[in-house]
């Protein structure tokens, strides 16, 4: 059990607990906070996977923006009555069963996959990764199209959100 594995297990446990509580907590704001904790966990995982850039991006994008959005949404749509009743719809157990089945299926597939327990190869010039990623995202023969599409998507999302949720001043 190297230090790294130890850290992995601790963080994994914490994140999973947070994940489960996101799904099961009664208070919406609490589930938002648990979500933030899970996102932190995921960020740490990225660090473990030697993708520091992604960890920071994860923090900025998810925690910095999306989590806050969730909290905003939770507050805007808060009404006392809502938080009391059972937070799950009637046939919740069926959902759980299906989720478990899904997990079993995925696990089965993964276990049978030959590369399942391969170990991490040595990472060449870790510092140049960001440069390489940046170039890949903008160079024509690689990923410029999805990158541009993503930007268009973001703009469209923004405009859409403003239009849909904006106060119609009649």
């Amino acid at each position, binding site marked *: 059990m190297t230090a790294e594995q130890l850290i992995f297990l601790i963080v994994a446990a914490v994140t999973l607990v947070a994940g489960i509580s996101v799904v099961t907590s009664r208070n919406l704001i609490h589930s938002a906070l648990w979500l933030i904790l899970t996102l932190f966990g995921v960020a740490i995982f990225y660090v473990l996977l030697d993708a520091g850039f992604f960890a920071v991006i994860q923090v900025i994008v*998810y925690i910095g923006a999306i989590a806050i959005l969730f909290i905003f949404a939770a507050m805007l749509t808060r009404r006392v009555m809502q938080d009391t009743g059972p937070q799950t719809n009637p046939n919740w157990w069926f959902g759980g069963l299906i989720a478990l089945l899904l997990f079993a299926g995925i696990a089965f597939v993964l276990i049978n996959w030959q590369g399942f327990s391969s170990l991490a190869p040595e*990472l060449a010039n870790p510092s140049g990764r960001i440069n390489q990623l940046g170039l890949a995202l903008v160079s024509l023969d690689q*990923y410029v199209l999805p990158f541009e599409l993503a930007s268009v998507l973001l703009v469209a999302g923004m405009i859409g959100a403003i239009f849909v949720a904006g106060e119609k001043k009649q």
Partner: protein
Amino acid sequence: MIPLSWYLMFAAILFCVGMYGVLVRKNAIAILMGIELMLNSVNINLIAFWRYRSSDGIAGQAFAIIVFAVAAAEVAVGLALIISIYRRRSSVVADDMNMLKW
């Protein structure tokens, strides 16, 4: 060293928890949170596969970036919709929104 399997299993579990949240939670915003969890697990998978299988290439990371962008846009639009529905129907429960036009 941490084998790839750990990451994959962790991601799978997280994915299923998110799935459960989406299927089961009554509140629309909780459903969105479930979706966020699922997207994050997908991202972990991507980065894990990048790191363990093809760390010389850049495909994994590029796709992770795209997933980030899509997730952000999805949440923004999702929440906007939910808020506008809430404003009209003063309810955020997913089951109440069962008509295309009201």
